[in-house]
Each structure stands twice: as structure tokens, then as C-alpha cells.
């Protein structure tokens, strides 16, 4: 028997002493527990007795005490310190708390979480609604884009479903409008476009099915798998879809690169970051 993949062995959580710290700690230790991972807590800022005490009392309340936790205090610019720590500790997954709706100012300036998302070299999990009680993760939505990273994203989504006990995974194939090649202008072109869409949908379904065939059976057997093709702006539509079906976790490929130009003309993941529908897991190998 081959061993199952175990993508997230080391989880880093960069924390600040905010009112939601307790909730975030609950959530992140719970995750580490289900992922069977080691947890690294990192605070960028001065280590005072008061802070130490506060963290300690928070940690006493968590549910999963057996999770191995190491705590680090470092000084410097938060962004740089966390980036550096991710490399130094060989982190697999960076967990960040995120604000759900960005306003336009933040969008261009970028909050810390979003900046990190764009620069870090490991996978990132953005939590939008941490909770004390466990909210079971029922439904995971993962992208099925035609991209080299997609098999990994799908594999990790299935792993997460397996680890968290999710009951359904929907693989969303976003088909770009430009692939249809036919501009609908009258009845005839509409007919052609509809036919073309059917073909594309079949092609995409087949491609995704091939990816699914390569997954370990342990991952695929306990979960309902659904494929849904949507025709729309890549990146944004999947977020909208996750919101409509009220998914608990959205898994996506990491953006290839993200320059200022991308931010001014947002595409792909930028749209979702600006309007987070659910917890978001961005997979980067």
C-alpha cells in the first residue's frame, strides 16, 4: 500500500493581538489537528510579559491540546518577517485572518494578508469567519482550470475534504468566453455558440476526469464529486459560484504573478481577494 499524500505538514499562523485572536487560534489549532500538522505561531512585534500572558491564557482555552505548537517572536516589518519565516521553517501552509469585504482604498494599497498572499512561496489559507465551535466543512469548491497547477490544487482539495470530512467537492471548470469563438449576434450564431459550449464542456469534463483518475481512492471514495462548468470571467465567477452554493472552502491555483498592472486591471484571483466569499485556500507548490 502506498502512503497517502500529506501536503500540509507544517502550518504557520502569523498572529496579532486583535479581538479575533481567540477565534483564530481555535480555528488554526483545529486545522493543524485535522491536517496532522505541526503549528508554528509567529508574532511580529515586541515580546512583553503582558502579551505572553495573554497568549498563554488564549492557548489554554483551545480544544486540541495535543497539536505540537512552537511560538516565535520576531521584530521587523510584518510582511518581510513572515515571508522569511515561511522559507526558514519550511512552511507548507500559511494561515491568515482576512477581512471579508475590502474597500477600494485597501484594495489598491493591499492589506498585509493580501500582500502576503501574492508573495509567499507556500500555500495560503485565508480565514474569513473563524469560530470557537467547529463549523463542519461540508462542501469544497475547487477550480478545474486548464493549467499545470490544477492537478495539485484538486489533489489538495481532496486531501482537505478527506481530512476535514467534507461531504461534497465541486470541481468548477471556468470556460473563457473567448474560447467559444462565436459572438452571439443573431439566432444562427447563438445556435453555433450553444453547440460550441457543449463541446467545450465535454472536453473540460474529460480533462478533469483524467485528473480524478490519478487520485488515491481513499480520497475520492468518501465524497460526492460534482463537475460544474461555468462560462464567465475566470477567477471571479468561481468565487461567485462558491457564494451561490454556499461552499465552506474554496480552493484555487495560485496566481502566476501579480504586478501593479494586475491590480489595476484585476484578473483571476485578484477578484476573489477583493470580495472573499468563503474561506480561501490558495495552492502553491
Amino acid at each position, binding site marked *: 500500500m502506498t502512503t497517502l499524500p500529506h501536503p500540509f505538514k507544517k502550518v504557520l499562523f502569523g498572529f496579532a493581538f486583535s479581538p479575533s485572536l481567540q477565534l483564530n487560534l481555535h480555528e488554526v489549532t483545529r486545522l493543524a489537528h485535522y491536517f496532522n500538522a505541526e503549528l508554528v505561531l509567529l508574532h511580529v512585534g515586541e515580546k512583553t510579559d503582558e502579551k505572553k500572558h495573554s497568549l498563554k491564557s488564549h492557548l489554554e482555552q483551545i480544544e486540541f491540546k495535543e497539536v505540537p505548537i512552537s511560538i516565535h517572536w520576531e521584530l521587523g516589518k510584518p510582511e518581510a518577517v513572515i515571508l522569511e519565516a515561511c522559507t526558514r521553517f519550511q512552511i507548507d501552509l500559511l494561515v491568515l485572518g482576512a477581512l471579508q469585504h475590502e474597500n477600494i482604498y485597501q484594495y489598491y494599497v493591499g492589506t498585509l494578508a493580501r500582500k502576503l498572499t501574492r508573495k509567499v512561496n507556500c500555500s495560503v489559507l485565508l480565514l474569513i469567519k473563524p469560530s470557537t465551535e467547529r463549523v463542519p466543512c461540508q462542501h469544497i469548491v475547487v477550480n478545474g482550470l486548464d493549467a499545470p497547477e490544477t492537478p495539485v490544487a484538486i489533489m489538495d482539495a481532496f486531501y482537505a475534504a478527506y481530512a476535514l470530512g467534507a*461531504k461534497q467537492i465541486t470541481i468548477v471548470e471556468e470556460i473563457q468566453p473567448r474560447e467559444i469563438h462565436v459572438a452571439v449576434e*443573431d439566432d444562427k450564431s447563438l445556435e453555433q455558440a450553444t453547440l460550441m459550449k457543449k463541446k467545450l464542456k465535454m472536453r473540460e469534463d474529460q480533462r478533469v476526469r483524467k485528473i480524478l483518475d490519478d487520485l488515491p481512492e481513499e480520497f475520492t471514495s468518501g465524497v460526492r464529486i460534482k463537475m*460544474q462548468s461555468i462560462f*464567465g470571467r475566470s477567477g471571479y465567477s468561481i468565487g461567485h*459560484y462558491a457564494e*451561490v452554493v*454556499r461552499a465552506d472552502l474554496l480552493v484555487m491555483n495560485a496566481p502566476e504573478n501579480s504586478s501593479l498592472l494586475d491590480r489595476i486591471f484585476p484578473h483571476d484571483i485578484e477578484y476573489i481577494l477583493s470580495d472573499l466569499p468563503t474561506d480561501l485556500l490558495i495552492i502553491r507548490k
Partner: protein
Amino acid sequence: MDNKTNHTRHFIQALPKNIFSGFVVSLIALPLGLGLALASEAPPISGVIAAIAGGVVVSILGGSNVTIAGPGNGLVIVLLGAITTLGAGDVYQGYLYTLAAIIISGLLLLLLGFLKMGRLADFFPASAIQGMLAAIGIGILAKQFHVMIGKNNTRGSIVDLLIQIPNGLLDLARNPDPEILFAAGIGIMSLLVMIFYAKIRNAYFQLVPAPMWILILTIVLSYVYTFANTPYPLGDQFLIALPDNIISSWRGPDFSAWNQKEFFLAVIAITLIASIESLLSIKAIDKLDPVGRRSNVNKDLKALGLATVVSGMLGGLNVVTVIARSSVNVNNGATNRSSNFFHALFLILFILLFQSQLKRIPLAALAAILVYTGYKLATPQTFKRIAQVGWEQLVIFMATLLTTLFTNLITGIGFGILVTFILHVFLNRNLGLFLNHLRKPNILLYQETDVGNYYVSVKHFCSFLNFYKLKNKLDVIPENEDVVLDFSMCQFVDHTVLEGLGHYMGTFQKKGGNVEIIGLDILETGSLHPFAIRKTLPLSSLKPIERYFTKRQEGLKAASEGFGWTYIPERSFKKDYLNFVFFHTREIRYTYNQLVSEDKECRVLDMEFSEGEFIAKEVVKTSAMHMELDAPLPSFTLDREGLLQWLYGVAGFHDIDIPKHPDFNRRFYLLGDNPDAIREVFTDELVLFLESHPYYHIESNGKAILVLKKERLLGVQEIKSMIYFGLQLKRILHPKTVRIS
């Protein structure tokens, strides 16, 4: 090949009909062409040239089916402005400069067509366009009224002209000039013909359209004078001026004003109004098309552009798609573009054969036709209709109308757009809603895999600013499909969108499909739902909901009447009867839109419930069916695998397998506390019935059955099939319940 010959045969078969409707249209196009050109201070023949160029070019190259192209009334004001300002007093020189502007605007239209800008008209708020059209109507009326009463030389702005109308009438009585009085008499008689034409119910009389009657009667009148050997009381300045020889009198466009600011502005205004008028007309006529074809607007724009260039070269006005003539065309049985071509052909015949007769037409008669046309664009009913939609629409309408009257069309429509936007911001008290989400793709479209209908979800807001995005999605759905359009994630929907959606619903219905709007029939803003608070509809819909039904509510009402049930739209907070396992973890806030059966045992209702307590609460709206049972049934829940993910870890509930139905066991989750009793209920008949209708989640609490389909409100069609399903289910269950008790 076979297909092609078939096509040709159809075309030839339909030819007589199209020739006839082309002829009828030409009877209107002739007086209107002459009149619209005169109203623009251009030589009368230029309007007919535009109609001929439009008829020939657009019928051959266009992308619409039953439209008529020619000079448009929307352009009168713009062209008049261009001719007077560019000519600086010399009307004829102004006309030559304007011809150049027309040709360039034709090229721009052509370009718009190639850039696929058929969407352009979608960016204008509906009420602002209405206001602009009303202003054009008033403008035409104000100017032509004076011509109609024989005062050919009254000049001034639209507002001046309006103010002078009483004066002009008084002057008529004070200084009776026999020539002017005669012209005024003809004008007023002609206006009466226009007004009372529709009232005369005589098939033969109605064969000839009113404008043509006016021409015929006035020409005949002039011949009466000739036969009686009395001089005709009207001099040349009161009669239409036509060149004796059209070809030798031809003067080409004058491009020498190209570098003037006024010239540039004229080109922009002409292009803007020509494209808006054409695009709106094409859309409107598509709705009248008996076969329900969809026009290729971009192709049509290109054809109109080319036709405008040709027309301008020949000394004619702009070519646009005209709604009144097009609808006459449809009403007279046109089936394809050839009628447009024949309308042009008949116009050529008229000009060649009746040249001397046409010169006998009094200007006052043509002016009367135009006064009537102008009035039609701005009747009191127009104002009333707008006001009925809501006060904010009236504000937009009046703002556009008044600004257009006092300044010009471009400023008017621009101001209308600005007012609309400011009102939207004011109504929502939220500027960020629009600024933050304007550029985001806010529409999601997909085909639901289980039932195959299309689902469209709209987020944030949907107004004239981003309606084109929704239209882009709706346009790619075949019209014979079922579409569910969900606005429940949307905070604001404006009048332009709802009106536009009304058109889509009509088109889909015509072609066998269906568009259902859900998420709009929300109650007042008193709801605690974070979306509901800010969800603003056009103000009328915010009033108590039993007075202002949405389309869905009207549909529900009709559906309940169809079943002989009662429909209760009001909110109800009575919910104790909804004691089901499903609601153990969910809190029902209220129910609404209830459909209740005669015996009060079955009801379908919309409900709002919240899910979860400590996490960020989610509020869900869903439709469900509730049926009371005559005899007890064991408690159970039945869920199709993957349907709703509503599975419970309820204490005492077991997963139950039905013997001899492995398929059923694989596809459905059946849970309950009394396996034996449940197995008895699930007979072969019931299992087969459920397997063939796998879309529902069913729950029994012992006394009643709850049926759910999706975690969203259902459309009327879906509700109907749910009722049908529920009633059948009850019928199958009934004998069993008797046995168990």
C-alpha cells in the same frame, strides 16, 4: 442545395405580401420624408433620398428582418441645429455643410458596427431616453405648429417657439391675410384628419394611411381650383419646393467646415442620436416580429452607416431604423427585408411619376403631419405612465426633458444620466455600492446539472450602468430554455433593468422558454437580513407587497388559481406547524407567499430562515411544500444523494435500506427512528415514484410532510411541478397511512 431552393421558394411565395406592405409603408414614407426634411430646414427631397438609400442598402446588407430604414424624427432637432448653426444664416450652405457631417456620422456608424457596439443604447437609463424623445417631440411640435398655421417665418429656440404659439393664433385673428388664413385652414384640417383617422372604421378608408390622405386631399383641392379656373390661393412660398430635375440640380456635400467645433459637435450629436434611435427601434421591432427572429444589430448598424454615407453623397439626410414605419410594415404582413426594398422602389416611382403633383402640396399640410408626430412623442399619457413607475423616474424624465429643451440633446441626455446616477446613490444612501462594484463582473451564469435549466445570479447591484453585463449573459441563452434569474444577492435593481428584463421575458415566452425572476419579491426594508435592509427597488415595489406584485407573485397568484387554491402574499409569523427535523438547527423568521389548498391541508410557502447560531449567521430563503396527513406516518427524512446535503446526526435516526431496491438505496439517504414502519411505507410504487422524481427532499414529522427542492426560492414553474409532485406523493402515501394507524 435543397435548402437553398427551399429558401428561394419561400422568398418568392412571400413576395406579394412584402410588396404590398412595402407599398403601404411608402405611402407614409413619402409625406414623412418630405415633412421631416422640411422640419430640419433641408430641401424636402433630401428626406425622400434618405428613405430610398435606406430602403435599398439596408434591405440588402442589413441584419434585421422587418424594419424600415429612412429619415428619423429623432434627428430633426439635431439636423435643424446643425443646419442653422453651421450655415450661420445661410440655410442652403448650412445644409451642404450638414451633408458632410452626415457622411462622417455614417462612417462612424459603420465603425460602431464593426466594433460590435450594438450595445451602445443599453447604457442609457430608460427614463432619460423617454425624456429625450419627449423633448424631440415637443421640439418638432413647437416649430411645425407655426408652419401649420401659415406662419412660415417664425424663428427662435424651442422654448421661444412654444411661447409664441398663443401669439401666433391671436395674430391670425387680428391680421387676417387671406393667403395665411387659407394655409392655416389646410393645416388645421390636416391635423384633424390625423387625429380622427383612427376613429373612422372603414376598411377602404383605412387602406390608405392618414398622411397620404392629407397629400391626396390637398393635391385634389389644388386641381379643383385649376378646373374652376380660379387662381390657387397659395403662393409658392406656401408650397413644397422640389427641383425640376433632381440629377442636374444635385449639389455635393461641402467638407470645408470640417475643422470647426460646431461641425465636430454636429457629427457627434448626429451619430449618437442616429445610433440610439436605430438600436431602440430594432429592439422594439424584434418584439413585433411574428416569427420572433433576433436581429443582428451590429450588421444592421453597418448597413445603416453605409446607407447614411450613400444618402449624404446624394444629398439626403441620415438613415436610421424608424419605429412607426416599421410597425406599419409588420402590421401589413411583411415577412422579410424585401418590403424595405419595395418601399424604396415605390418612393422612386412616386418621385418620377408624380413630380408636378407633389409640388402642389402645401407646407401647412406636411406641418400638420409633423405636429401630430411630435405630439405623439410627448402625450400626457407619456408623463402619466412614467409617473406611475415612481416619482424618481418622473424626476429623471423631467430633468432630461427640460435640459434638452433649454440646451441641446447631448447636454440633455448627459444630464439625464447624471440625475439617474445621483438618484440611485441617494436612494441607496451608498455611493460605494456603485463605485466599488461597477467594474466587477457581477453576473454568474451556469446550467444546473440536475435539471438542466439555466441559473443566473446577480451580485451587488444591477442598474443601467452595468445592465449590459447581464444582457451579455442572457443573450447567449437559447430562448427556448428555462432560466432562473436570482437577485437575492443583489442590493439594488433599477427601473431600466426591470423594464429590460420584461422584454426578455416576453421573448423567451414567445419562443417556448421561460425567464423567472426570484429574490425580488422581498418585503419592506424592515427585514433584519443584511441584504434586505439595503435592497431597494423602484419605489413602487417598496409599498405593501399585496398591492405591488412582482412578476413572480403574479405568477404564483395565477398558479394558485389554476389549482383552485388561495394565494396569501403577506408575511406570517406563525410557524409552529413547521416542526420538522430540518428546522431543528434553523430558525424560521417568517413565511410569505403562501399558496393554500381548499381543504387547508396542503400549502406551498416561501420562508426565510437563518442557519447556525454562533458563526456568522447565514440567512436563507427557500420555497417548501407542507402537507398535513389524515393519519400518522413514521418520522423520516429522505434526501437524494448530493441534492441538498441536509443530513442529520439526529439521535435515534438510522440509515435505512429498502430491501430489493439497491439503486434506490444507493441514490437516496433515508433516515428515521422506526426502520420497520418506514420500510412498510416505502412500497415498490413509492420507491419507483421517488426514483423518477429525484429532485426533492422529503421529510415526515409524523403528522405532516415537508417537501423542499433547493436552497433558494423557486420559480413559478418549479412551484407548479412541486405541487404536482406533492399531491401525487400524498395520493401514494395515503392508503398506507390508513393501514399503519
